């Protein structure tokens, strides 16, 4: 068995001078054996023989087997969710069939990682690396989970080990740069990000990393340059707009920053990392059934979604969101009677649940019981006076009865409670449109565009477009249509 080249702080492997050969060369440090072994025979025999004699135990030693170790003992891990315990037990059993298989150790490590146990995953990846010293992936995976476990120093050592085996994996440099930055080692962080940019100048992550380092040292102009480079390389990702906005704001260039901040708000950095893709895919396969139900709903597979919600509800009757979701899906599936049954039963258990009460109101209204619907709206308002939902529902009831002024008044109350609530604004603006109170409709929507966190739904633009058209504000209408990329003018409001 080959000698394993692994980093370890205490043993100080690096200090022993074991540097991985460039890619394509053997990483076996036994390959760094004194090259006297390979010298031509014309050299003096005595020292030559001495080196050979020295070398033999080394070669033997180097080819000592990595000890066979048992997998982590699940019993020592304390309380685990039953499904996770079963998952880990299965993976452990598979490994026990061949304890010297680095791939199986890696799979077990991936299971531990996916199930939120990075410390144990690290043990598995370490063993995989010990058994397969040539693959850069095991030390890389060890680095990633070490970082997740909060041990950045170990993560960096493992990351460096992976680089020694494969200096061409871009993401390693990104991660190492991030970890060094977290440790406050700005120079080292900068070096790794620079190496990433050198390795592949067409990828954005290294440039973004350099920007982060530059911001720490107040080199804001340089940071902006780096961020813009990242944005050029990946112009579709709103995240780079967010970072550019932050940097421009730092320079006091607020007017340039604001639209970028608005567009990028809520976006997150993405890391292209095929070497950890397997752990992510496992997590997505085992995602919550509830999420699965929502996916089916999105695909208009309502019957299948309903079946899943009923199954979960039977297991988890104490969760109000489940009957709420089930009822809404039944309604979408045009099964209102069943939706009502579910809603009523849920309200027996959760009598003051706002959304359930509003849903009941909708169902009563649809079933031709306007008094019942009104009572629901009143109950929702009384029990939750600080939430707009009850007021919004009541406003729609009033509008349907042709009581427009009252509907507007109640919608104004809803908006006052929550000015950033899109539903409140859209409803009030729509009510104004119907009354041909275009100026007020425009004011309601234009105010929304000035709010912090303004994420502008298409509905706002549609309302504005109708109002601008009705009031002959053609210049504003053209500008608006250009902004949203619309070519045809909206129909007149009814």
């Amino acid at each position, binding site marked *: 068995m080959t000698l394993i080249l692994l980093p370890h702080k*205490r043993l100080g492997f690096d200090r022993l001078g074991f540097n991985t050969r460039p890619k394509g060369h053997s990483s076996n440090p036994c390959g760094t054996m004194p090259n006297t072994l390979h010298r031509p025979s014309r050299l003096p025999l005595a020292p030559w023989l001495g080196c050979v004699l020295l070398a033999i135990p080394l070669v033997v030693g180097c080819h000592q087997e990595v000890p066979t170790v048992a997998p982590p003992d699940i019993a020592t891990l304390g309380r685990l969710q039953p499904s996770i315990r079963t998952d880990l037990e299965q993976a452990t059993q598979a490994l026990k069939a061949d304890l010297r298989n680095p791939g199986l150790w890696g799979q077990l490590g991936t299971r531990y990682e996916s199930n939120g146990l990075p410390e144990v995953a690290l043990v598995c990846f370490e063993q995989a690396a010990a058994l397969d010293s040539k693959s850069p992936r095991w030390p890389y995976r060890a680095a990633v989970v070490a970082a997740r476990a909060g041990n950045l120093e170990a993560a960096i050592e493992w990351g460096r080990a992976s680089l020694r085996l494969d200096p061409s994996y871009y993401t390693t440099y990104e991660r190492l740069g991030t970890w060094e930055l977290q440790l406050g080692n700005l120079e080292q962080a900068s070096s790794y990000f620079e190496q990433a940019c050198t390795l592949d100048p067409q990828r954005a992550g290294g440039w973004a990393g350099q920007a982060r380092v530059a911001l720490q040292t107040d080199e804001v102009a340089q940071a902006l340059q780096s961020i813009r480079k990242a944005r050029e390389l990946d112009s579709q990702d709103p995240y780079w707009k967010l970072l550019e906005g932050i940097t421009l704001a730092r320079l006091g260039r*607020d007017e340039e920053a604001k639209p970028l901040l608005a567009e990028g708000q809520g976006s997150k950095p993405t890391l292209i990392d095929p070497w950890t893709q397997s752990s992510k895919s496992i997590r997505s396969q085992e995602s919550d059934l509830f999420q699965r139900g929502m996916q089916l709903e999105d695909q208009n597979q309502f019957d299948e979604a309903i079946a899943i919600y009923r199954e979960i509800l039977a297991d988890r009757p104490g969760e109000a969101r489940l009957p709420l979701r089930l009822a809404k899906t039944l309604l979408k599936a045009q099964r209102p009677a069943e939706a009502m049954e579910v809603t009523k039963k849920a309200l027996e258990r959760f009598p003051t649940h706002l959304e359930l009460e509003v849903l009941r109101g909708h169902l009563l209204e649809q079933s031709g019981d306007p008094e019942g619907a009104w009572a629901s709206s009143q109950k929702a308002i009384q029990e939750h006076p600080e939430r707009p939902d009850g007021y919004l529902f009541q406003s729609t009831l009033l509008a349907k009865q042709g009581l427009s002024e009252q509907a507007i008044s109640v919608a104004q109350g809803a908006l006052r409670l929550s000015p950033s609530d899109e539903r409140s604004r859209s409803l009030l603006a729509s009510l104004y449109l119907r009354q041909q109170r275009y100026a007020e409709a425009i004011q309601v929507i234009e105010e929304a565009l000035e*709010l912090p966190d303004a994420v502008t739904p298409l509905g706002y633009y549609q309302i504005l477009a109708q109002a601008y058209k009705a009031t002959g504000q053609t210049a504003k209408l053209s500008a608006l249509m250009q902004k949203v990329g619309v070519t045809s003018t909206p129909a007149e409001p009814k």
Partner: protein
Amino acid sequence: MRPVANLLMATGLLTACAKQPTTSPGTEASPAASQPAWFEECGIESGLDFVHRSGHTSAFVFPEIMTTGAALFDMDGDGDLDAYLVQGGNWSAKPGTELGPGNQLYANQGDGTFVNVTAGSGADDHGYGMGVATGDYDADGDLDLYVSNLRGNVLLRNDGGGKFTDVTQVAGVAGNVWSASAVFVDYDRDGDLDLFVTNYIFWDEDSELPCQDPPRGATYCSPKSYAAPTPDTLYRNQGDGTFEDISYEIGLRNALGNGLGVLCSDFDSDGSPEIFVANDGTPNRLWDLAEDGRFVEKGLIQGCAVDDQGQAKAGMGVASADLDFDGDEDLLVVNLKGEDDSLYRNDRGRFVDRTPRAGLAHSSRKRTRFGVTLSDFDHDGLYDLYEANGHVTHPIESLGPDPFAEDNQLMRGLPDMRFEEVQPLGGVAKPLIATSRALAVGDVDGDGDLDLLIHNKDERVHLLRNVAPKKGHWIQILVKDAHGSDAIGAELRAQSGSRVLHRMVRTGESYCAANAPAVHFGLGAETRIQSVQVTWVDGSKEAFADLDADAVHTLRQGTGRPVQ
């Protein structure tokens, strides 16, 4: 040399082959037993026998993990700091029903020991408590209490002599949402204290969700599970004992969040305070009063809403101090385990996230932080950092019988806005392992240095008496306005040697806590403050000269030299 080199190499190889290296995850340096402690825990000995009860039984119900608050304030005007501790209890009980013992009031006997004076005080509110704020809203010279609760907040007017009256209904400040931290602040500079309340989330029993946290299973939810952020509330003091909720008119309802921490400071030095709100999982907010009298939210554009990667974090506690001595207060927000602190350096109202460079990015990620303070504990002239910690979900390994308990962390301030961890851990000889929440700061024993009162979930409080080896001198300044009240919102600029020390008079900081109002500076080698300029809330300025170190001074409005 070659054979020698080969021999050395061979020896190294033998050593290398001999052992399979492993990484010990989470290995940290062992506490240096020989390092002197900075604090001694003396809660029981001092008479603070308060034990918090979250009401937890078997289910994990969200409010249990977020409670609760503490205050250090001089309730009876005798010159020492008394303690007010907020109780949890039975979260499912309806308002008005009697619960357990309620909040507790402890009077300082003048030497840092306490006696429980709750009975008959009127301060024993029985709501499911979250936090407490102190301020003299009625300008009668003593500090009143505002207690935030899960349902229905309470205003307790201080009637003097350790007596309080519940004036909530008269004042109109009950609210109807789960509230967290609150501060008294004269936002409009009209001479009376208004009240800003952070609201956490729209929550009631029926909306409670059972949350899972792989791999442990059932645990407490996070606010993201509910997706129900709320607007905060501003009550304007009408000067007659009543308040008006002006949240909508002033623009506060324009932005939602999961507010937990709040702090006021004049970050941009424009003469009026901004209100910073730390939000849990949503962007932080920085409210700035515009000329039209409405608040404008500027967190994102000013650089303190998110971190340097543009990400909102789980903002809990918040602290502020002029760490780089450039005349404006910098900002620190503490966050969840796995997220580092957010240390924002203030550059004339623009903030830059300096957390990595400060040495906080890695060390702070290991724990979930709530209570926080930037204070000079060892009087070397640099602000130190103390963080009170406790999990909100099940950790992989527990440090004790309470699975949510963690140790606290003390960081020594270094030049250039950097910090390094102090050993022994948390500055105490034996680490304090508890689910810590609120942290209040003040000189409890009157010896000139700052002590800490830490509120722990389902545990007794910890009183940490400061015993740090001192590296310099200190000064404490009580700043009193024309009414004789603590001049909350006044700003101090003190010349000490070649440095200008800057601090705002405030009690609201940290998480759900109220600190002592006295301004404390560590002076290092300096033995006096050459001059102090106070900018009062009404905008007037006065100068006071020559204050000796190692003493408590009182500066009263109207007794200094007016400054143009």
